[in-house]
């Protein structure tokens, strides 16, 4: 087997939370607010339900094909060539989404912190670190995350706590459902891509020490992320109000609002620091999945060299796919829904085929 390590159910939950949470806190409030305005928090609830449903499909697939990743069982289900094509599509998805995330973080750093440093520097160092982490394997990745995720969560709660004096919930959150339900649904679409990131479990379920827990793991992760996302969206909207629409990274603006006794001020770099650490974990998880998937599609024994090759491709795509931050944001709204279709569509399609062709371990046969 390519990967010898196993991760516990708890580590899988932590990994999933780290994969979704830091970037969604940074990017989602703005994207959701454009569509849903003050009802964005309802969109969060909606998207959490969607995340649970999408995760359930993945968990069901994992149960049907114990010990196999999606790359392996798609070939069982569809035959070698079509199965591999599906595998390649997934590799493409992993890499493109990763490129998107890296670029988002890169633009954020350039715009907000170091305008004179070229973007390439951030992209290259992020990818180098991701490659370094991934080469150590899944177990180490999970352990690193065990250290960083608590820090990210603590910083988040710290931020919320310090911002409490600035809250104006009544003024900014009412009226509820001013324009009906449609904006809420539209606001949930960009968030869907983030919450569907549980699809990394397509690659990870076989490396859990108890793969049977997959459904519970995904559900816990989605609910945790949903709860934190709800909290942060509520806090952002009730603090910034309509300003949320103008700020690309409202959660960061929040950190800037902090002013305690005129001594602790401008904590945004520190808060951002923890989110970048979390973001690096996310990038590493995606890179790990992309690498493992590539290795399995092409039947490579040792994924060490693949991490480097994939990393190079990833770096190239990150730099050339988008012209600038504006195009990036535009695409986030325009193109990501199509990605979402693929992320949900592929597992759903595979599950459908498995049910129809009665492949894999049948749910009833297990009992």
């Amino acid at each position, binding site marked *: 087997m390519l990967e010898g390590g196993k991760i*516990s159910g*708890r*580590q899988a939950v*932590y990994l999933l939370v780290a994969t979704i949470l830091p970037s969604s806190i940074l990017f989602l409030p703005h994207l959701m607010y454009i569509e849903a305005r003050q009802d964005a928090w309802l969109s969060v609830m909606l998207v959490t339900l969607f995340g649970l449903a999408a995760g359930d499909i993945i968990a069901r697939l994992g149960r049907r094909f114990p010990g196999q990743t999606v790359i392996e069982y798609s070939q069982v289900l569809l035959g070698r060539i079509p199965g591999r094509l599906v595998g390649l599509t997934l590799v493409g998805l992993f890499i493109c989404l990763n490129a998107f995330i890296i670029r988002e973080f890169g633009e954020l*750093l350039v715009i907000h*912190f*170091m305008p004179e*440093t070229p973007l390439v*520097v*951030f992209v290259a*160092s*992020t990818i180098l*670190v991701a490659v*370094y*982490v991934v080469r*150590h394997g899944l177990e*180490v990745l*999970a*352990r*690193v*995350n*065990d*250290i*960083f995720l608590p820090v990210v969560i603590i910083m988040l709660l710290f931020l919320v706590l310090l911002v409490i004096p600035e809250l104006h919930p009544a003024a900014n959150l009412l009226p509820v459902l001013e324009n009906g339900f449609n904006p809420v649904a539209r606001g949930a679409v960009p968030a869907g891509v983030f919450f569907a990131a549980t699809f990394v479990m397509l690659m990870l379920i076989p490396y859990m020490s108890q793969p049977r827990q997959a459904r519970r793991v995904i559900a816990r992760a989605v609910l945790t992320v949903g709860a934190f996302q709800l909290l942060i969206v509520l806090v952002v909207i009730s603090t910034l109000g309509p300003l949320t629409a103008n700020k690309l990274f409202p959660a960061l603006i929040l950190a800037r609002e902090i002013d305690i006794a*005129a*001594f*602790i*001020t*401008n*904590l945004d*770099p*520190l808060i*951002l*620091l923890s989110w*970048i*650490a979390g973001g*690096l974990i996310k990038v590493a998880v995606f890179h790990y999945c992309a690498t493992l998937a590539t290795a399995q599609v092409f039947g490579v024994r040792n994924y060490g060299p693949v991490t480097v090759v994939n990393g190079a491709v990833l770096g190239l795509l990150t730099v050339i796919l988008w012209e600038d931050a504006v195009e990036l944001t535009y695409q986030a709204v325009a193109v990501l829904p199509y990605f979402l279709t693929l992320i949900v569509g592929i597992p759903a399609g595979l599950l459908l085929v498995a049910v129809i062709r009665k492949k894999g371990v049948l749910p009833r046969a297990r009992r």
Partner: protein
Amino acid sequence: MVDLPLSPKLEDNLQAFQEIIGQAPDLVVRRLQLKIGSRERAAALVYLDRLADPAMLGDNVVQPLLRRAGQMGAKVTDGDLLEFIERNIVTVPGARRETNLGRAVSIVLRGDSVLFVDGCRGSLILAAREFETRRVEEPTLETVIRGPKEGFTENLNTNVSLLRRRLPDPRLRLQEMKIGRYSQTRVVVAHIAGLATPEMVREVETRLSRIDIDGVLDSGYLEQLIEDAPYSLFPTIGNTEKPDVVAGRLLEGRVAILVDGSPVALTVPRLLYETIQAPEDYYSRPYNSSVIRIIRVLLLLGSIFLPAFYIAIVNFHPEMIPRTLTITLAADREGLPFPLALEVLFFGLIFEGLREAGVRLPRPVGQAVTIVGALILGTAAVDAGLVSAATVIVTAFVGIAGFVTPGLTDVYILSRLFLAILAGVLGLFGLVIGLVVIVTHTCSLRSFGVPYTAPVAPLDFPELKDIFIRAPLWTLTTRPASVTGENRYRMRRVLRPAPPKTAGEGKRRKS
């Protein structure tokens, strides 16, 4: 070792002995003439001056031989002669027969004495060692205010006895082996049967038996030859000078390695959290220990990250500094010639130099150097406008913080350098990059199969009761999960002390 059987002739044996050992000024050959029955028999006692105890040999070997050899009847044959001497005449506690000359030589070199008797195809080994050793003293590196103050010495037998006295239980197992082609160093692997896992003990012994080196002069040699991650900055083998610490670690299911000639014992597996523990934590009440542990963690992190953080904040994110301080800092840095990163690195180097000078020089002079260096050099450098006062403060703080957790000395200098460069180029982002790299590296380490960062990563929440804080002793009912095998409970569950129930005020207590 020369493999040579002994000859029955005394002179042949002595000559062969001399040939093996060469011109040895400390070799003593005490010739004796034994009266056995009616006959006279030549004999020789061979030992090394200053290693064997001449007084003990005189009282217990030479005197009885000369006085009482006559008791032997003529019925004692040549074959039985040595056995008769061993059983009935010499009175040293340790005596045994040896037929191989090579082994006899190496035993003499270790301090025992050997008796050759003409006509006997064999020799008698007599244990009567006496050599100069340091006495049991308070350890210099690990000092405690409360708790046992005994430290290991260079004598393995003393060290073993110190350990035995703390754990007089048959389950304390000591396995001895000899390592070193020339030094023939005695090495003892200690564990408690039923607490340490057999795989762990076997792994330690396998790694030790692999070693083939000319000499082992200190346990540091073994540490470097059996560690898990030889390229890593992080130590994966623990060391201590204190027998109570070794006993404590053995009781947690660890394995200890004692080396003759070294006052420092090794313990494995060694995990990262041991860096922030001190023996005293367990000997005093929990509150202070817990606060001190948290301070140790903060200072450890500060010692590694503060210079880089300082560089990143001042260079890239001055808005994070409180407003009034920003102005002071900016005024302070006005007109300084060097870039900040260079300044920090340069002053860090000077601090390390001062530290080294303080260690190497004789103690009174060493202190003078440190004071002169720290006070005068620092102040003068600031006054001369070479460095900013803040840099001197940061460097001094970082250096002192490093002393709080001396277990990671290897890590400090290089990781500080690495992070300072990253922070100088990329600011806080560089710091995060460096942080992730260092954390990843630490997480990838294992010490004898145990994840180095356990129980923080992989996280085991109940185990944290003895990591960042030290929970009350009666709550520490289990041994550390990452180290111990099956035998988990080290005390009865309910040991929380409580006052006895007494009758209320003013009433008489029932008798």
